Structure formats: C-alpha cells, structure tokens
C-alpha cells in the first residue's frame, strides 16, 4: 500500500470529507501547492479555487472560497468557510459566491490594500473559468 495522508475538509457547519489521500492539491494564497505524505508542517491561507484530492480510488475536486489549510507529515486539514464538491457548484451557487466576494471587496475595510480585494475577485473569476461556469 502506498503512503497516504489523512485528509479532512471541514466547514463551520460540518465535516465535508475525511479520506486517506495520496496527494492533495491546495490553492494556497501565495500559489498552488501539493501536499504529499511527509510534507513539512505548514499553515497557509487559501484563495478561492479548486482543491483536488487524489486517493487510491480516484480523485475528487472541491471548490473552496477561502479559509486555511494545516499540513502535517501525516495529515492535511482544510478549514474552508465554504466548500462544495465541484460537481455541485451550479451557476446559481457560483453567482452567489461571486456576488458575495464582490460585495466584500466593495466594502473592503479601509486600510487594507485595494488590490487585495481586487485579487480576490480575480481569483474568484478564475475559479469560475476553471470549473466551467
């Protein structure tokens, strides 16, 4: 049996997924990264994007809109504010997510650089393109 890591995807309301994974591709705030067994301990924030989990039975994709990931040698825990299997993201849900982010960007707290908010919107739009919305 190949080396696996324990992968958990948790939203505030419930645990969305808990599987043994071979690798997890994470949309980190500073670029994508892949966590495999034995990864150095890392905590990173997420940008809106697609998170891919590869396990022995195949791969699964989740759409996340932010949160953070905690990576250890033996486990990956992703805490996402919103996480959905990509297949379940309908145009309506995507539009809602996009509107949410845009609204957040529009009222971005004074003091936070405007391009941070703009980047969020851009990330979100890129995400839309990626999942074919």
């Amino acid at each position: 049996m190949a080396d696996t890591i324990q992968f958990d995807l948790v939203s505030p309301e419930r645990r969305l997924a808990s599987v043994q994974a071979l690798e997890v591709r994470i949309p980190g705030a500073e670029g994508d990264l892949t966590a495999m067994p034995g990864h150095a301990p890392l905590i990173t924030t997420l940008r809106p994007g697609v998170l891919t989990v590869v396990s022995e039975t195949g791969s699964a994709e989740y759409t996340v809109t932010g949160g953070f990931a905690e990576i250890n040698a033996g486990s990956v825990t992703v805490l996402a504010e919103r996480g959905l299997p990509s297949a379940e993201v309908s145009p309506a849900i995507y539009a809602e997510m996009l509107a949410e982010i845009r609204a957040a960007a529009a009222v971005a707290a004074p003091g936070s650089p405007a391009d941070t908010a703009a980047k969020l919107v851009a990330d979100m739009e890129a995400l839309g393109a990626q999942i074919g919305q």
Partner: protein
Amino acid sequence: MPSLKDLKNRIGSVKNTRKITKAMQMVAAAKLRRAQEAAEAARPYAERMNAVMAALAGSVGGSDGAPRLLAGTGAEQTHLLVVMTSERGLCGGFNSTIVRLVRARANELIRQGRTVKILTVGKKGREQLRRDMGHLMVGHVDLSEVKRMGYDTAQKVARDVLDRFDAGEFDVATIFYNRFQSVIVQIPTAHQVIPAKVAEGADVSAVYDYEPGEEAILAELLPRNLATQIFAALLENGASEQGARMSAMDNATRNAGDMINKLTIQYNRSRQASITKELIEIISGAEAL
C-alpha cells in the same frame, strides 16, 4: 363553591392545555436532537481553529505588531455585551438566567465606572433588558426569520460586532449564552471574544511554516475565529433553548395532570354531595308527612 358545570369546563380546559404542552415537549425533543447534532458537527472546525489560533497567538501574541483583535485597544473603558437569547418564550428560566447574568455584569462594570453597551441577539433578551437597561442598548440582531441556525447568521453577527470594533465603539466584547450541559442543566456563560482569549501552552507553534507570514494569517484568522465562536455559542444556545423548553413543558404537562386529578376528585365529591343532599331532602320531606 364552583358548580358542577364550572368544574367540568375547567377540567376540559386543563386537558386541552395538557395536550398542547405535551405536543410542545415532543417538538422540543425533536428539535433538541437536531440542535445537538448541529453543535456536534460544528465541533471539529472550532477545535482546529482553536488549535491553530493558540499556536499562532503563542508566537505572535507577545510582539508589538499583534493585531488589535488579539492584543486589544489598550483600554478597557467601554464594554460591549452581546446577549444571546431565544426568539420565543415558554422555555422556563432559559432567558432569565442569561439576563440575570448580564444584569449583574453590567451593574458591576458601571460601578467600576466603565461604559456599558448592549447588543442583543434574539427577541426575548431585549424585551427583558429594555425596562432597566434600554438606554445602554446599541443594537439588536433579529433571528425570527432564521429557520435553521447557519454559519451565515453567525457571520452576520460577527460582522456587526467587527464593524463596531473598527469604528472604535468599544474596547472589550463579551458574549453571553447558555452552555448546554444536559436537558435539565444549562449554564449561563460569559465569554470574552475581543480581545481574543486563546488557550495558552500550545507547544506546536515552533514547528510550522506559515504562508504568508504569521501576522498576515493571524489577521485573517481573527475575524473568522470570532464568527466561529459566535456560531458555536449560537448553536449551544439553540440546544439549550430546546432543552430548557423540553423540561419546562414536561413540568407543565405533569402539573396539568396533577391538576386534572385534583379537579376530578373535587368534581366527584361535589356530585356526590349534591346526590346526598337531594336524598336527605326527599327523606326528610317523607318524614314530615
């Protein structure tokens, strides 16, 4: 002495009341189970969040650059009390216990010369506090439209609190809610959320790499942590409310049963008394002849 007819009506109405309280108890029991499951399901997220927060706060907390949500504003003058209560009554002492705790805390703070502001979440607490603390209230979050307690509700409350904090309206925020222990026991709890109190003694902090930097992550995490804590409190409160309602309605049902028994005995006695009286009248009438 009520007439037989009155007693009969009375018994009928108490029986109806018993039916209603019994139904409410069963509804509360079903809702309680759901509320407990929701609280259970939300636990992993809160636990991970706490662990990461503790690790981060351990390494950043001491420095001067710590975010204000963690380090505070440096003053303790103005306190915001976030009071979480239910939207509906008929749940025993559920709301009163929270309000009593809030009142004690508010009075204590005022005695110390601090400024107190109250933000109510849920209608019942506002109604109870309005009488003597109405002038301290700064806002209210209405939950009557909320069918199922979701994270978005907590985010809404958190946003409200954060906006006020950013506007410099208060220095310290405390949330008040009932912690669910069992159906019979709910513990009114005060929990300080701003500046954030995190568990000390985390020893994992040293080993992690942070991307982006620790401060950046912390700055992003703190507002989320607030929403998470409020969410957890709302869920605990929801479970407590249903638990309190269930036991209150159980009591009411039992009391109604006792009352029906008592009234039935009274009814039978006065019926027997009237029969006896009639017999005596007939007999004494016959003797007089």
